[in-house]
């Protein structure tokens, strides 16, 4: 069955196919990878009627343009980006109708770093080890394990239903950030650090450096002191959000593309609830760390996932019933992020509005 496809016109600096990640093979050295801002990808899938395991596009900094080869529904989530469909401004966290031949263009991201494009049915590249996520370092997943290139044509999966366009009002992430307090659970090797070292870690501001990527955030700030001056351990397993302290005393926060094992002591681990925002932070921004208990971290995650799973996809606009050619049609107009839109029977279309002067 032909579910249609999209064609990458310009991938921008870095566009990758990602899903929830490739868990289950870490004991064989296979990185989990997956969307760094998983919340935005989950929300995108919900907005287009996809199950949460469907793959979408993760676009770093923007700059992507793509063409739809079939009418479908899509949504843009994550970073705030000046995005247009056929030249008409789009808002984020709304699912829109795209037509055959429609061109989606993303400008540079303003607030946040990574945009997610979710399309009804998802990107249907073959799964590798149970996932479609791209891990460039080991050349696994996506399209031949690489970032997307101009001219790539990506098939779409079968959409679960014709998605009802909508907007999530309950679940939004504040991306207009200059500094962030990230919640962590201390350990597993906090015992290797002195009281002064732990104090430095929890009371200082750390700046995100340019050497940050999907594998991890490298931070710069006050040196974190270990008890014995030794920072290396016998290599053991790491997790998403492990905060490693290598010999220079500067934290590295591991993210989606991390290797499975490492030899640096881990002073703390970022709470899962705060991992997605680390996919949106940019070099130059400052972070601080706040210690919470495992129970607090799990409560916070449970609450957020309930909110995300339960967030109603509400109608974008108050619509009104009209009779068009004798049948009832619900039509509404609204605005989101400065973008104008029209809904017709629940399907949302981006529109541009201009004043016209009737001929006299």
């Amino acid at each position, binding site marked *: 069955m032909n579910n249609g496809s999209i064609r990458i016109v310009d991938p921008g600096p870095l566009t990758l196919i990602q899903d929830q990640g490739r868990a289950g093979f870490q004991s064989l050295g296979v990185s989990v990878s997956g969307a760094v801002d998983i919340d935005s990808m989950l929300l995108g899938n919900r907005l287009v009627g996809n199950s949460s395991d469907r793959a979408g596009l993760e676009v770093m900094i923007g700059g992507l343009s793509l063409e739809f080869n079939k009418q479908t529904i899509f949504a843009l989530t994550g970073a705030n980006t000046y995005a247009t469909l056929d030249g008409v401004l789009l808002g984020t966290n709304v699912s829109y109708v795209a037509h055959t031949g429609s061109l989606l263009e993303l400008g540079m991201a303003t607030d946040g770093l990574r945009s997610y494009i979710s399309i009804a049915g998802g990107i249907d590249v073959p799964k590798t080890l149970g996932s479609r996520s791209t891990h460039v370092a080991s050349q696994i997943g996506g399209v031949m394990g690489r970032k997307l290139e101009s001219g790539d044509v990506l098939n779409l999966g079968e959409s679960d239903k014709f998605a009802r366009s909508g907007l999530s009002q309950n679940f939004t992430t504040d991306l207009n950030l200059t500094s962030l307090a990230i919640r962590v659970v201390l350990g597993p090797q906090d015992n*290797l650090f002195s009281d002064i070292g732990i104090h430095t870690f929890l009371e200082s501001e750390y700046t995100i450096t340019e050497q940050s990527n999907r594998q991890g955030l490298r931070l710069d700030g006050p040196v974190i002191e270990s008890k014995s001056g030794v920072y290396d351990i016998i290599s053991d*397993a790491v997790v998403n959000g492990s905060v490693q302290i290598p010999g220079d005393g500067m934290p590295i926060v591991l993210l989606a593309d991390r290797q499975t094992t490492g030899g640096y002591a881990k002073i703390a681990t970022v709470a899962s609830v705060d991992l997605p925002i680390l996919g949106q932070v940019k070099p130059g921004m400052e972070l601080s760390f706040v210690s919470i208990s*495992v129970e607090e971290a799990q409560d916070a995650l*449970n609450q957020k996932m309930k909110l995300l799973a339960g967030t109603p996809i509400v109608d974008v606009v108050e619509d009104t019933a009209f009779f068009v050619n004798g049948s009832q049609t619900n039509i509404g107009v609204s605005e989101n992020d400065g973008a104008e839109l029209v809904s017709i029977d629940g399907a949302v279309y981006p529109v541009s509005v201009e004043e016209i002067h009737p001929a006299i």
Partner: protein
Amino acid sequence: MDATDSKLQVFPRLVPAGDSAILIELGAEIDVAINDSVYALVEQIKRANLRGVSEFIPTYRSLLVNYDPLVTSFRVLFEQLTVILENQVVGEKIVFNPVVIELPVVYGGEAGPDIQNVADHAGLTIEQVVDIHSSVDYRVYMIGFAPGFPYLGGLDSRIATPRLKTPRILIPAGSVGIAESQTGVYPNESPGGWQIIGRTVTKLFDISSHTPSKITPGSRVRFVPVTSHE
């Protein structure tokens, strides 16, 4: 408080690694018996079939247990794992039968451009290097760094050799190397600084298979010299 702290620690040590994993440290050194107990523990926990446990990452002397915090909780799993560890009979011989994986290796020549370095460093002939390297069943302490990359233990100290001063840009898949007291195989093409002494054509990592890695954690590897891969 000094560097000897880790030796004063009591093992096993169960600690949270964030809100979705528990780390069980069984020791603080690279040790055959400790590593055996890591793999024995994996089997014990698997048999217990604990709710919410999703994945295990066994390493030299610790085991990471990943779990879904939306299904179980740290408190519940900590209790369950503690019971499993407490029920281990002290002094009980750990039954652990590793699989031995034989890898045919062409030593030297184009396949092993650095074998002369290793021989010169050891003051041995190439033939002696091959004999020594292929006469041991190497323990797979863990897999990490890259898909299917085994951390092997058991290299004869006579052929331990420092890394290349300048790492190679590209090492072919299947290359067998030595770095200090470690030996290993590159499952995939990779940059690297190890002294390359040979190559196996056995495909070590196949992403199209659901058992993608030929070498598995806890198994043993034996290198078998062959003259060609025909």
